[in-house]
């Protein structure tokens, strides 16, 4: 094969822990390379490095045989690399034409902030839009009035208008309907025929099989394999994505009691439908699924933070439906929620560890509305010791704690509230390996002490280590339920993907 258009070798990057370790890939002109892997496998970091948004700690890249080390996205674009990101980066109040050429708008004078040459902008925009099949879209339309698919295509057009040789598409179809997606694929095929290189990132394996020439599978920051797409079967891809290590891990031995902790019948809300759930005291029920499968929305609805559209929730052994219209109702019924985003939805960052622990049950350390400071410190000290939260003092602002200790402080909040049901969303995201094991141990202990726990996680290893049962969600539906005897990583992953392939199959 000829010299590659783009090559990377030995790329490394770590944040709290390594995300990319010794990654090498090549993309040839006229080729679509698909990157697949679980959430957190390193796909996004890799694409951000290629586009210049992130710098690698080690390794080298080359473009058309010349060294390539972009310091910014703009530098990457000048070199001929463009990325279309998952988060749509367009400004809704600008027109399509302005959005296409935002950083190099044609001007009537040489002034940097001078008058825009509307005629040339319109003509250039039409050319650029034509290149992605949007021939009927007026460049003067406001971006805010476009459908998600049109926006995605406008972003791709903007990338192509910069004469990109290498185009990175990160989950380009996540917002698209099947018919819109097929329009996008037609354009990707055309780009390939014209000799562009394309890096295509997607969870939807059916799409990947349809469009990719080669597939690179990433797992835990490493490229596990790179092979011709036609030589890889889908179950093989899934197996490579998940890896074998999981099956060997030690598992918690739970013994759920017959008492119910939480039950739902036909629960539906924004982003999920018809969820029937039965959690026993002492049981950890896992929620597996891909991003956007509806897990977070389900937990928020159980907690009263989002309204349900149908179905009933029963808390405890009661046969009477529980009315949960707000988090306040849920907390009073003994439910606690550890949110996915600790900092945005959980912690009072500048406030003390003690104030964060007592927040959900401040009445417990107050009399006649006056906070008993010594009582509060005693309570905080008790939980800091019990959960071994590492802090200099109880007065230390919680923002100064590590992610793992912040998570433990939030867990302490619900323990002090004496919640019987814990809803846990991505409990170890962004937490180092040591604290992660501690959080796992704590969750296990809580279940052993009779709490009912519902845990959403993108980390299969975590789910399989801790849970008694795992419900797999896919595109808002429960796509499978497994117990320790029946689950395997392959089966869970296949169920998580099932909704996506169904959607693709109807295209």
């Amino acid at each position, binding site marked *: 094969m000829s010299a590659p258009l783009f090559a990377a070798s030995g790329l490394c990057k770590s944040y709290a822990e390594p995300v990319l370790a010794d990654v090498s890939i090549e993309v040839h002109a006229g080729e679509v390379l698909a990157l697949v892997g679980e959430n957190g496998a390193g796909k996004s970091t890799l694409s951000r490095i290629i586009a210049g948004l992130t710098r690698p700690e080690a390794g080298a890249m080359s473009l058309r045989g010349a060294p390539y080390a972009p310091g910014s996205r703009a530098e990457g674009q000048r070199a001929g690399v463009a990325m279309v990101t998952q988060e749509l980066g367009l400004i809704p109040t600008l027109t399509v034409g302005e959005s296409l050429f935002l950083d190099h708008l044609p001007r009537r004078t040489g002034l940097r902030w001078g008058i825009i040459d509307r005629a040339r902008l319109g003509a250039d925009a039409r050319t650029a839009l034509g290149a992605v099949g949007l021939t009927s879209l007026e460049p003067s339309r406001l971006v805010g009035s476009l459908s998600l698919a049109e926006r995605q295509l406008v972003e791709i057009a903007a990338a192509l208008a910069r004469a990109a040789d290498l185009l990175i598409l990160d989950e380009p179809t996540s917002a698209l309907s099947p018919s819109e997606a097929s329009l996008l694929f037609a354009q990707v095929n055309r780009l390939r025929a014209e000799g562009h290189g394309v890096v295509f990132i997607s969870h939807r394996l059916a799409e990947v099989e349809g469009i990719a020439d080669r597939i690179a599978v990433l797992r835990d920051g490493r490229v596990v394999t790179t092979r011709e797409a036609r030589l890889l079967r889908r179950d093989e891809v899934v197996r490579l994505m998940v890896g074998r290590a999981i099956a060997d891990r030690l598992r918690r031995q739970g013994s759920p009691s017959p008492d119910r902790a939480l039950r739902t019948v036909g629960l539906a809300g924004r982003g999920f439908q018809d969820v029937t759930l039965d959690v026993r005291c002492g049981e950890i029920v896992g929620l597996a699924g891909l991003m956007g499968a509806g897990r977070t929305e389900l937990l928020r609805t159980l*907690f009263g*933070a989002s309204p349900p559209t149908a179905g009933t929730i029963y808390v405890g052994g009661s046969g009477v439906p529980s009315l949960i219209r*707000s*988090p*306040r109702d*849920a*907390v*009073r019924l003994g439910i606690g*929620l550890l*949110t996915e985003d600790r900092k*945005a*939805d*959980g*912690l*009072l*960052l*500048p*406030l*003390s560890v003690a*104030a964060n622990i007592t*927040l*959900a049950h*401040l*009445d417990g350390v*107050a009399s006649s*509305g*006056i*906070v008993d*400071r010594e009582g509060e410190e005693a309570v905080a000290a008790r939980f800091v010791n019990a959960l071994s939260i590492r802090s200099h003092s109880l*007065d230390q*602002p919680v*923002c*100064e704690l590590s992610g793992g200790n912040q998570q433990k402080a939030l867990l302490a*909040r619900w323990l002090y*509230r004496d919640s019987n049901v814990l809803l846990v969303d991505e409990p170890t995201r962004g937490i180092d390996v040591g604290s992660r094991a501690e959080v796992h141990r704590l969750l296990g202990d809580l279940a052993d002490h009779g709490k009912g726990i519902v845990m959403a996680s993108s980390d299969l290893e975590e789910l399989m280590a801790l849970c008694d049962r795992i419900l797999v969600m896919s595109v808002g539906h429960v796509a499978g339920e497994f117990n320790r005897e029946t689950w395997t990583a392959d089966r869970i992953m296949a169920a998580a993907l099932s909704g996506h392939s169904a959607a693709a199959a109807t295209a």
Partner: protein
Amino acid sequence: MSSRPRELLGLLIVLAILTLAFGVGTGRFLTVTTFRTIANQIPEAVIAAVGLTYVLVIAGIDLSVGSILALSSAVLGVTLARYGLPLPIAVLAALITGALCGGLNGLLVVRWQVPSFIATLGMLEMARGATYLVTRSETQYVGERVEGLASASVLGLSIPFLAALVLVALAEFVLTRTVFGRYMVAVGTNEEALRLAGVDPRPLKLVVFVLSGLLAALAGVVYTSRLASADPNAGVGFELSSIAAVVVGGTSLMGGRGSVVGSLLGVLIIAVLGSGLAQAGAQEPTKRLVTGAVIIAAVLADHYRRARHQASA
């Protein structure tokens, strides 16, 4: 929270330096009369600053306190002068007026999620308009019936001043030591976190706006008693000078951090500055230039503190 004593100490030092500087500079600033004058002029500013401190702590703003002061003053003046009602009933009517205005502010913010800047900006105009209607745009001379409120004194200090000090102490206690105070700080720091901890922030926010309106009305009563009249143009710009004093006192415009005692010191600093500059012979334009610069310096100091805080996070 541990940084609070140090911030208050800083304000005290600024206040001491200003006082000494004017004392040395003008030669006649350091007299009992000066301080008595200042003490008797600032109660309404202190009272309003207490309510505003709470509003700022919950990450809101209240632009309507000046107009509410004028409206409640007008209600007091008209009920006394035109209708001849007994003083306690007139005062009660004035306070209820302020609480209702604050309640409407709070309702708009809580129930319809109108940004407090907009809700209270509307109230600023509406209460002022109502003031003109109530007074028929004429100053209501109330006479000695209310002067008793202001003229009574202990050790030469007016009852309103002493009452304002008691209010500051009480409000600081509520802010730092009670469940209500903790929830206010939590709302201003991260309202969603408080909501997801099972505490409904809405009643709390409503009460804070009602309190701000009520205290603005109390400031209006004090103001009326001091001048023995209700002027429909009273308190124009009062909201801005009050917010300035609160911010100078170390309360953050971003919410979640504030001190009522700090606000008292902020009012004192601005009052000493104004009175000292006047005695030094500065005209109104100079006074305003200097006061404005002090406000900006205070906000920059707040910004710097925040940036340092986030850097350590």
